[in-house]
């Protein structure tokens, strides 16, 4: 065989091998991180974790952080789901080809990967500071501010999914409904949203998976709390912030609790993202 062929085949062989190695590197890191989280998390998990609130050393649990995370995630979804779905509907149904529509779509894509810590600062300036001065200092950091910051993380995810899902609905469905004399709002709410319901639900779940693991925007909005708190104007603990504080502590007993919290979050987020994949898979089958 001519030398040039040998060289070309050798290049090909080396490139393909390297690409296989690159995939192995990616998978190795995934396995490494998951293995560490699972093994260290499971060895630290126990009943006191769910019954005791955060405290020093091995006396501590995560009860207040778990409750805080659940409350703030729920409130965040309650804020961003309606706004996001409506905004996505506007983009898909009223502004599909307009200049305003494409500009909002463009900025939404940027918001999707904007640094979460800056969104935290934003909420600090527009929510925490005004509330502090209005209440004379009795209310400053609050669960409400934390939820708003988290909602800003989830919002672009929901906008984008809703937009894409509604665009998938065939135009004949719209024409059929409109030809019966249905007003457009009724068409949108009762026909289009129903047709793309599972897709929109996927977007909400994706947003929840995304915001549940966020730490940075909570640091200076909800702040953290070593006691149980339920009120929307109280400072509130959350799992990611509690993990952050425990990890910063030199005491190994605190690290064990941090790993247990890390396990809870990781399982929650991974379960959610696998669940959304199932949703998607089912949806694809429906459309075929």
């Amino acid at each position, binding site marked *: 065989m001519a030398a040039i062929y040998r060289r*070309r085949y050798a290049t*090909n062989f080396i*490139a*393909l091998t390297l*690409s*296989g190695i*690159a*995939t192995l*590197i*990616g*998978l190795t*890191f995934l396995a*490494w*991180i*998951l293995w*560490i989280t699972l093994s260290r998390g499971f060895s630290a998990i126990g009943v006191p974790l769910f019954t005791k609130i955060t405290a020093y050393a091995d006396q501590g649990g995560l009860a207040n952080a778990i409750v805080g995370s659940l409350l703030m995630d729920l409130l965040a979804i309650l804020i961003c789901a309606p706004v996001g779905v*409506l*905004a996505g509907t*506007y983009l898909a149904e*009223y502004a599909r080809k307009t200049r305003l529509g494409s*500009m*909002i779509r*463009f*900025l939404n*894509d*940027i*918001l999707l*990967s*904007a*640094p*979460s*810590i*800056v969104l935290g*600062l*934003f909420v*600090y*300036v527009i929510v925490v500071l005004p509330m502090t001065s209005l209440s004379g200092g009795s209310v400053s950091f609050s669960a409400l501010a934390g939820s708003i910051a988290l909602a800003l993380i989830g*919002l672009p995810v929901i*906008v984008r999914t809703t937009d894409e899902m509604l665009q998938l609905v065939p135009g004949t469905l719209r024409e059929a409904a409109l030809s019966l004399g249905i*007003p457009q*709002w009724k068409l949108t709410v009762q026909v289009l949203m129903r047709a793309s319901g599972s897709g929109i639900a996927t977007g909400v779940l994706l947003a929840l*998976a995304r915001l*549940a*693991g*966020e*730490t*940075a925007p909570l*640091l200076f909005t909800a702040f953290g709390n070593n006691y149980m708190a339920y009120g929307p104007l109280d400072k509130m603990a959350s799992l*990611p912030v509690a*993990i*952050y504080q425990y*990890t910063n502590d030199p005491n190994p007993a605190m*690290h064990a609790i941090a*790993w247990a919290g*890390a396990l809870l*979050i*990781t399982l929650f*987020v*991974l379960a959610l*993202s696998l669940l959304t994949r199932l949703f998607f898979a089912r949806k694809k089958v429906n459309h075929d």
Partner: protein
Amino acid sequence: MNATSLPAEPRDSDQRALRDARNDRLFRLILKCCALLVLLTLLGAAASTLWGGREVLFGHTWEFLTTSDWNPVENKYGALGPIFGTLVTSIIAIVIAVPVSFGIALFLSEIAPSWLRTPVATAIELLAAIPSIIYGMWGLFVFVPFMADHVEPKLSDTLGQLPIIGALFDGPPLGLGILTAGIVLAVMIIPFISSVMREVFQTVPTRLKESAYALGSTKWEVVWDIMLPYTRSAVIGGIFLGLGRALGETMAVTFVLGNSYDIQASLLMPGTSISSSIANEFNEAVGTHRSALIALGFLLFVVTFIVLMIARLMLRRLSRREGN
């Protein structure tokens, strides 16, 4: 108009048409307000950080942007240290992540048998789903000791002895530092870059690839000479997308950077980044210090906004061509 000009009481269907039209306008208005909220969020984030950081941004502009002396006790805020750390860690992350992501995308779109593609692609995308605080913990407790024991001593023994680039790998094997943070960031952005690359590789028309194969090209030649040129702008867009993520990432790097404001040549030495400075110091800061941290946030926002804008514009170019 018709309804009002009717002499007797308007008919039922006319009233309904009027009501529907009014409801439609109202519905559209509500939707539009929600959509404008997205716009407002971005504008608001820029404006509020600019406002919060005005004291430092406008009062000490020069000092803030050109000195590296960050000392809250003496009220000195030179941001060069965090800016340097953010840029260098992100560049390291990109240098590592781009070839690896390209390899993964190549493997998933051309080499792997079809039964293997979905599970491997899902696994790689799960890397993106892991919360960044988990990366931070794994980085601090597992990866930092690993770097300190196994990687960094070897680096300073081999590369560290070379004449010019040796300065980059000089110093004690602390584990913590710029290089470690860059590698953790690389792992975080690999799923983003590789999934964009994989998606755009799938848009290459099959007949283009088959023509090349028919002329006797190897797989590598098809990927390098046919697919990559065809998707070039989107691939660059994907890389910028990863860069945008890396620049703004907070929790993954805060633990492993080592929190030092000194600018050092060696990548093995500790440093800081914009986001980790904010996360570490914000809650203890008051007055000018707090303003300086918000000003850092403004800087970060502007830089990531520009990078992400370039990314989206590059990605959009391919989808437009696809539409033609």
